C-alpha cells in the first residue's frame, strides 16, 4: 500500500455571513491523493471546490477534520511549520496571481531569491529554464498587465514550479481561456506531471479538460463527496445512457459530466441546483 501524499479526513467547513448566519460549505470530505498522480476535483459552481482547495493550501482553516500532507496534519500547524510544507508545493491561481509590480522574470525569481541560497547568476539561468518549460521565454521582461489570460497562467505556472515542488495545485486552470489554449495548458500540466513526477491536484469544471489530465477524479456536490474513483469509472458513468443508471448519485454525475440541461440537477422549471445554491445558500 502506497502512503498518500495528501490525506483529507472528515473535513468540514462552515462560513458565517455578515448577518451571522452559518452555512455549511464542506460536509465530511474524505479522499487521498497518491504520489505522482493527477487528481481532478470537479463539481458545480458554489459546491465548495475553492473552499476545499484553500483548506488544502493552508489558506483557510477547516472547522473539523484533518488534512495530512506528507503525513503531517497542516490544520494544527503554526505558520512556520506550514511554511516549510508550502515550500514543497506550487499553486497556479485562477487569475495567475502574478505580482503586478514585477516583470514575469522577477516573478519567477522571487521564490528562488527568498527560499534558496542560489547565486543570482544561477537564479537567472533557472528562470530561463522555467520560462522555457512553459514556452514563455519571449515574455520574460513584460509586466503582467501586458500578458493575455493564457500567458498569465503560463507565467503563474512557471512561478509555481520555480522551487521544484512535489505537489502542484491548480485552481480552475481552464477558466476564461479558449478551447485551444485550454488544450495547450492541459498538455503543459500533463508534461509537467510526467517530467517532474509531481503530484497534481486540479480543480475544474471543464469536463474535456478534466478527462484529458485526470488519473483519478473526485466529484463534489453541495459540499459532499459523491464519488472518488479512477478516470475509467467516470468515463463509464458518462457513456452509460441515463435510463440505465439506477443510483440517483450516478444519474447526477452523468448529467454533470455531459452538461445536460435536464436531469436530477435541474428542477422542473429548468433552474439548476447550482444557481439555487448561489441565491439561497444552504445549511
Amino acid at each position, binding site marked *: 500500500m502506497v502512503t498518500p501524499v495528501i490525506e483529507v479526513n472528515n473535513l468540514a467547513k462552515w462560513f458565517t455571513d455578515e448577518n451571522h448566519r452559518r452555512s455549511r460549505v464542506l460536509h465530511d470530505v474524505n479522499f487521498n491523493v497518491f504520489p505522482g498522480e493527477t487528481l481532478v476535483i470537479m463539481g458545480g459552481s458554489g459546491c465548495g471546490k475553492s473552499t476545499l482547495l484553500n483548506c488544502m*493550501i*493552508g*489558506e483557510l482553516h477547516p472547522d473539523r477534520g484533518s488534512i495530512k500532507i506528507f503525513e503531517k496534519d497542516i490544520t494544527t500547524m503554526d*505558520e512556520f511549520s506550514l*511554511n*516549510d510544507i*508550502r*515550500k514543497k508545493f506550487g*499553486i497556479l*491561481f*485562477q*487569475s495567475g*496571481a*502574478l*505580482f*503586478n509590480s514585477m516583470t514575469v522574470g522577477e516573478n519567477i525569481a*522571487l*521564490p528562488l531569491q*527568498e*527560499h534558496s541560497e542560489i547565486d543570482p547568476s544561477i537564479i537567472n539561468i533557472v528562470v530561463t529554464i522555467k520560462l522555457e518549460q512553459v514556452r514563455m521565454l519571449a515574455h520574460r521582461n513584460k509586466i503582467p498587465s501586458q500578458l493575455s489570460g493564457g500567458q498569465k497562467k503560463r507565467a503563474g505556472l512557471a*512561478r509555481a514550479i520555480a522551487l521544484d515542488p512535489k505537489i502542484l495545485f491548480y485552481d480552475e486552470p481552464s477558466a476564461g481561456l479558449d478551447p485551444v489554449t485550454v488544450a495547450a495548458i492541459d498538455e503543459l500540466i500533463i508534461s509537467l506531471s510526467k517530467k517532474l513526477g509531481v503530484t497534481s491536484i486540479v480543480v475544474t469544471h471543464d469536463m474535456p479538460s478534466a478527462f484529458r489530465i485526470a488519473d483519478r477524479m473526485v466529484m463534489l456536490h453541495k459540499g459532499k463527496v459523491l464519488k472518488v474513483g479512477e478516470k475509467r469509472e467516470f468515463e463509464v458513468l458518462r457513456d452509460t445512457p441515463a435510463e440505465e443508471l439506477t443510483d440517483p448519485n450516478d444519474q447526477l454525475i452523468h448529467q454533470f459530466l455531459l452538461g445536460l440541461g435536464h436531469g436530477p440537477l435541474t428542477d422542473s422549471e429548468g433552474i439548476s441546483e447550482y444557481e439555487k445554491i448561489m441565491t439561497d445558500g444552504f445549511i
Partner: protein
Amino acid sequence: MSDRTLIKKENSVLLMLRLIGRTTLGWYDKVMSGIRFLGGMTILLGQILWWTVMSLVKPDIRFRRPALIYQMVRVGVRSISIIVLVQMFIGIILVLQMAPTLDMYGQLSSVANIIAIAVFRELGPLITAVVLSGFAGASIAAEIGAMVESEEVKALRAHALNPINFLVVPRVLATVLMMIGLTVISDVMGIIGGFTTAVGFLGIDSQVYLQNTQTALVAKDFITGLFKAGIFGLQISMIACYLGLRVTGGAVGVGKATTQTVVFSIVSLIATDCLFTAIFYIFGL
C-alpha cells in the same frame, strides 16, 4: 377613546420602540466595529514589531533593505514639493494672522517666537502627516487592496512569504522614517515662510526675527515634534496597511479602503495630537 386613536397610539409606540431598537443596534454595531478595528490595529502593531525585531536578530529572516529604500523614495520624494509649498503658506498665514493683535500690544517682533513654537511643536508634524496621509496612506491602501483583490497576497502566503514581513513592515518603517525626515523639512519651510513675510512685508528686522526664533526654541520642542512625527507616520501607514489587507468586494472595496484610510488617518492624527499635547503639557515637556 375611539378604536382609531388607540391603534394610532399603539402604532406610534411600536414605531418609537423600533426606532430606539434600531438606533441602539446601529450604535452597538458601530461600537463593536470600532473595538474590532482597535483590536486589529493592536495585533498588527505587535506583528510589525515582532517581524522587525526578528529580521534584525535572526539571520534566516531577511531585513528587506531594498524594499525599505524603495518605499522611502515612493512615500517621501513625491510629497516633498507639496509639503514645502503647504508649509510655506502656513508660515505666511500665521504671521499675517498674528501680526495685528501682536502689533496692538507693541509686540510685533515676537511673532517670530510664536511661529517657531507653533511650527516646531505642532504644525510641522501635523501638516506633514495630513499631506502624507493623502499621499502615502491612500496609495498604500489602494496598492495593498488591489494586491488582495488580484490574489497576490494569497500568492505570497502560498509561497511561504508572510505579507506582514513582506509588504507591511517596509511600508510602515519607510513612512515612519520619511515622516520624521519630512517634518524637519517642513519645520524649516514654516520658519522660512514666516521669516520672509515678517521681514519683507511687515518690516521686522531680520536679525531680531532670527534672534527671537532662536531664543523661543529649545531642544525639547524639536524632539517632541519629531517624536510626534514618528508616531503619526506609524498611524498613517498602519491604518493604510490594515484597511488595504482587509479589502473585499473588488474595485469598490479598494476605493472604500482608500477613502477610509484618509478619513481615519486624519481623525486619529488629530486625536493623538490632542492626547500628546495634553501629556506634554502635564509633564511640562
